[in-house]
């Protein structure tokens, strides 16, 4: 036993707050992560909401969690197992304890471990007193009573007092990591400008927690040094906000007003909600009566000359499929964002999955080619939303952007770009003043048509969902014309491979094993591969954001490896897709369909297996 309070210095530490959905866990987590970011750490977070309906207080179903990985070097996931677990009730304890690393720290409100609460989650005895927790550093604190005590004399009512338990816990966590309280102080003072007594109560609670830590004997605290971070101005951002902003940035770059037609659906609703706030930058949001109207209003807006978007999740994408084809046939620009969740059917609405890929590629009647792009981290949702807009507007095509529940809700610090530094976007809007307009004439050397919109003089024309005559755009049932147009539509999408960057490989440029990922699994795969490479394993890794078309050098890359291991969160959809395109490569797959990200550990084990074989 140590008598001094030692400090453990770590490259990165994972902390998770967990409690009832009424306990304010999300706020607690956000404060901790923003404070850490401001203190110079790398931060990746993952909020883990309860299932969609509020479960009765204190039940497993109602547990809310917020996990934060802070580090001094490049980190890409919120971490698998946690170093520090803060739990406010027995349900949170039961739901999370198996994620706590041996040797990790458990902070727990022992007041909440009443018989009644234990019973609610089927615990027959109190683990704090009756189980062997010696493998952990346990800080079993009377958080509830401390809160009551500290706030007894403040001018707030009893119900509100108990709501501040999370702040006592936050204070303890701040102490454990020697965090600076000033950011949170400012936050509360600003937020409760008009109710200073509430701000003060919260801050008092935090300080009480902090001081409780100070007074603890024999407890190790953690230290995570500042990260070496690229210069620039940063903010934390989650994938949905980043997606929204990326679309808005594309609109601004293109000089067009943005129009979003959308219907709420978990986990995509945030995009609609954030966009609705963005009337300040001129966004039009149309909360439609359903997903079909969401995309249909957007197609109407595109016909009328706006940068049109629609956002949804898997079941909504299914509903939009007929209308997507209208945009394909009429060759109108449109971005369709699909924040993937667990399927099929209503499935697991709050869980993450990558299982809409084949739907995005092929889920429509007829031969209906469409570009598909996938973002791979909360912050690069901005970049890929922007690019989706650029591709749509420059190629006169709908584009599907895939994200997923994991990156949509997770946050990462994001180096804020300047608008001046983003690539330009050239719309295909026809210049006014020409004498004639042929709606389906291709711009020379391309398959792209020009865009004339109502209001432009002399360009009156009719468009629609029946097969078009090449060049003039009339209606045609001619057999040969149909074949010509089918391949023009296909080639237009294939040509995009010349507009996107070449695919890059991390690690050796040829060898035995290439690990392949796409979309939201990036952080986990990269971390797993990096760790294995640190163990001197000879593996390479490549991650796809451009799904259709694939980068032009994809086949060349694949040809350099003996085996290609495709890891994805579905039963093997990207694997199937690659097989349709590259019959000569040796693809194998590693899949997980648990509504939950890969863990680094399981990835490493799987990859090792393939190296050993």
């Amino acid at each position, binding site marked *: 036993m140590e008598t001094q309070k030692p400090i453990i210095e770590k490259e990165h530490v994972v902390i998770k707050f967990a409690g009832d959905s009424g306990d304010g866990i999300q706020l607690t987590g956000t404060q901790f992560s923003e404070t850490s*970011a401001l203190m110079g750490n790398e931060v990746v977070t993952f909020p883990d909401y309860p299932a969609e309906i509020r479960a009765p207080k204190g039940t497993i179903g109602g547990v809310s969690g917020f996990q934060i990985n802070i580090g001094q070097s490049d980190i890409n996931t919120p971490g698998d197992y946690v170093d520090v677990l803060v739990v406010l009730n027995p349900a949170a304890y039961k739901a999370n304890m198996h994620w706590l690393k041996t040797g990790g720290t458990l902070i727990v409100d022992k007041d909440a471990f009443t018989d009644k609460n234990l019973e609610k989650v089927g615990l027959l005895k109190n683990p704090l007193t009756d189980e062997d927790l010696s493998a952990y550093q346990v800080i079993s604190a009377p958080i509830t009573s401390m809160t009551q005590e500290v706030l007894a004399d403040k001018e707030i009512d009893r119900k509100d007092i108990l709501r501040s338990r999370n702040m006592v816990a936050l204070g303890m966590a701040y102490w454990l990591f020697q965090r600076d309280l000033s950011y949170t102080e400012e936050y509360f003072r600003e937020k409760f400008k008009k109710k200073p007594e509430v701000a003060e109560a919260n801050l008092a609670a935090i300080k009480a927690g902090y001081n409780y830590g100070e007074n603890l004997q024999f407890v190790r605290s953690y230290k995570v040094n500042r990260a070496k971070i690229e210069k620039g101005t940063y*903010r934390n951002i989650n994938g949905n906000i980043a997606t929204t902003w990326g679309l808005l940035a594309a609109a601004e770059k293109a000089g067009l007003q943005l*129009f979003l037609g959308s219907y709420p659906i978990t986990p995509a609703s945030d995009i609609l909600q954030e966009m609705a706030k963005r*009337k300040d930058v001129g966004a039009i949001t149309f909360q439609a009566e359903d997903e079909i109207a969401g995309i249909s209003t957007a197609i109407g807006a595109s016909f009328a000359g706006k940068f049109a978007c629609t956002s949804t999740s898997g079941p909504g994408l299914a509903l939009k499929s007929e209308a997507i084809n209208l945009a394909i046939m009429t060759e109108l620009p449109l971005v369709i964002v699909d924040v993937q969740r667990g399927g099929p059917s209503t499935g697991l609405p709050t869980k993450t999955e990558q299982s809409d890929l084949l739907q995005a590629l092929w889920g429509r009647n007829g031969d209906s080619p469409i570009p598909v792009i996938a973002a791979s981290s909360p912050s690069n949702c901005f970049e890929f939303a922007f690019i989706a807009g650029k591709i749509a507007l420059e190629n006169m095509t709908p584009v599907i952007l895939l994200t997923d529940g994991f990156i949509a809700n997770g946050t990462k610090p994001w180096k804020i770009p300047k608008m001046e530094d983003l690539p330009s976007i050239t719309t295909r809007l026809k210049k006014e003043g020409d004498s004639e307009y042929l709606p389906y004439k291709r711009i020379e050397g391309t398959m792209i048509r020009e865009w004339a919109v109502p209001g432009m003089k002399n360009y009156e024309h009719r*468009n629609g969902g*029946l097969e078009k005559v090449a060049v003039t755009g009339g209606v045609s049932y001619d057999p040969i014309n149909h074949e010509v147009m089918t391949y023009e539509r296909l080639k237009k999408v294939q040509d995009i491979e010349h507009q996107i960057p070449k695919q890059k490989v991390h690690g050796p440029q040829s060898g035995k094993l290439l690990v392949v990922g796409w979309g939201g699994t990036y952080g986990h795969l990269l971390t797993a591969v990096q760790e294995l490479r640190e163990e001197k394993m000879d593996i390479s890794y490549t991650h796809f954001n451009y799904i259709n078309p694939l980068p032009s050098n994809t086949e060349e890359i694949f040809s350099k490896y003996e085996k290609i291991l495709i890891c994805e969160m579905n039963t093997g959809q990207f694997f199937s897709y690659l097989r349709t395109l590259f019959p000569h490569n040796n693809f194998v797959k590693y899949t997980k369909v648990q509504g939950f990200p890969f863990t680094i550990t399981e990835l490493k084990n799987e990859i090792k297996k393939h190296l050993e074989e």
Partner: protein
Amino acid sequence: METNTNYTFKDFKSSAEVRWCPGCGDIAILKAVQTAFAQMNIPKEKFAVISGIGCSSRFPYYMNTYGFHTIHGRAGAIASGVKTANPDLSVWQITGDGDALAIGGNHFIHEIRRNVDVNVLLFNNGIYGLTKGQYSPTSKYGQKTKSSPYGTVEHPFNPGELSIGAGASFFARGIDVNVNDNIDILLAMEKHHGIAIFEILQNCVIFNDGAYSYYTDRETKDDHQIFIKHGEKMIFGKNKDKGLMLDKNFGIKVVKIGENGVTENDLLVHDAKIMSPILHYQLAGLKDPVVTGVIRSVEIECYDYAVHKQIKDVQSTSKIKNMNDLMFSGTTWTVE
């Protein structure tokens, strides 16, 4: 939106060959629309004519304006998108009883609820024409069609009651061949701010010929249709001797002038502009005579106007003017 234009209906004829069956009611409607458009003093390029799928939905091809022949049932949503995107356009939605009331029923009631400033021409022929004769949501109970060989057991919608029930600010009814009346109505729709639903009883000569002959037979039509105008007495009949009068409790009754002491002064004067929908609801529901003309036309804020007004309001007070402002707002930190 008005400017000095000098159009005739020919300016609104496109070069596409009209492909409806000879005798189809759609042809007369096309003529009325082309004529009315020419009188609206709106530059041609500002018209957007949006349709779904159906015989009637071929309409945009024949109009020399911006046109969009979309997919079945979605005309209402797409037209809502066009108008909300650009309120400066004159947006006309062309749709059938199947397109608007079967597959498109939801978009129909929602564009009405929102009061989007779209002008809707609902070609009601009581049948699915394009797919060759299945019954529609306005087919008569018992009607035998390709899909109801023993007679349909479904009750029809009354599009007027449905529209008003959904909150319509404007509802009118017309009959395909009454070209002049229809032109009046079309001009009134253009003037109206907000959704304007115009149900046109349209004869499908092939699959539902004579569906409205009770109202339209040359011999008897004057006794079975009434054309009403705001501020005018509700009078009709070959001899202008019939009219509509208030009934004692609720409802409207048909009366004959001269009978039971009824004089012309007892007749109802049409008020299309009262906010209460009760009179309009009854007129829309009347079976004999069928009521044509502008039944309801009241002012309610339009959705598209309100959307853009809200954007302007927010922009006038917000400190965030562009994406740079937005991205650098709130909590950020700088690494140097």
